[in-house]
């Protein structure tokens, strides 16, 4: 137990010696200019990134609006029939068409 305490004290002493062996260093003359250069560089990068992100968002919004407008316009192209599928089918095969309405079975009154 006392051994452990002794080592603890030695370690504390070593840490104190370390504190003295590493005093606050002198700051070089280039510290501030380099710091501001790095800040400017980061700012330029952030500005470009933000501008790019804004452009992307604007383009996405514009595309969404354009797509919305395009989809909301009713289709009235000349080549496209205005009717629904059922109406087209009914028009092509009217009810009086024998093949559809009463196909194939014909009763001959004379038995022929």
């Amino acid at each position, binding site marked *: 137990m006392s051994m452990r305490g002794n080592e603890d004290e030695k370690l504390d002493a070593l840490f104190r*010696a*370390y504190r003295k*062996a590493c005093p606050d260093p002198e700051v070089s003359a280039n510290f501030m200019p380099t710091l501001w250069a790095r800040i400017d560089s980061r700012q330029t990068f952030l500005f470009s990134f933000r501008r790019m992100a804004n452009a992307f968002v604007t383009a996405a919004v514009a595309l969404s609006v354009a797509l919305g407008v395009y989809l909301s316009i009713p289709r009235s192209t000349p080549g496209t029939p205005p009717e629904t599928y059922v109406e087209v089918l009914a028009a092509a095969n009217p009810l009086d068409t024998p093949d559809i309405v009463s196909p194939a079975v014909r009763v001959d009154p004379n038995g022929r």
Partner: protein
Amino acid sequence: MLVDFELIKRAQNKDSVAFNEIVLAYRKRILGTITRLIARSEDVEDVAQEVFLRLYFSLDQLRTPEVFEPWLYRLTVNAAFDYLRKQRRRQEFRMSDLSEQQVLMADATAGSKVEHEEQTKKKVRESVDSLLGAVSEADRILLMMKEVEGLSLKELEKIYKVNENALKVRLFRARQRVLKAFGAAGKKEGPG
């Protein structure tokens, strides 16, 4: 506090003169802390600049100027941690054998008392650096902040934003590991 709240508020509004004053007030202290945390003098300014760079871009997130110092320390701890993690400098890489050899070589050439003192300091730095290789980068920084920088548990609580008991447990475990390495190093040196 080395600066007043008004100055911090001005810097928060992107006043570059105010920010300059804050850097001038704190740079020496931050450089000193980083020197002891990373133990690599050639990269100290680079890490310190990273701290102030992060400060510049996140200063507007600081809600109350009262917590400015713990917050700046937090940025310092994070930057030092990122640096150490990148470096992956472990004990094996800086074996005490190597430092002894360096010391012997230096001793042969060093004549003056100043040089001798410098060599002693260098040996202390390398010993502590080597011992702290026994713990993770995060624990190394925590131990340094407590044992070398002399921050109280209350101050560390503000920096790490964890409760005192959790910090105590973590510190105790880290110190035990360092003590174990310290004991092993002592036994190694003892017979020789």
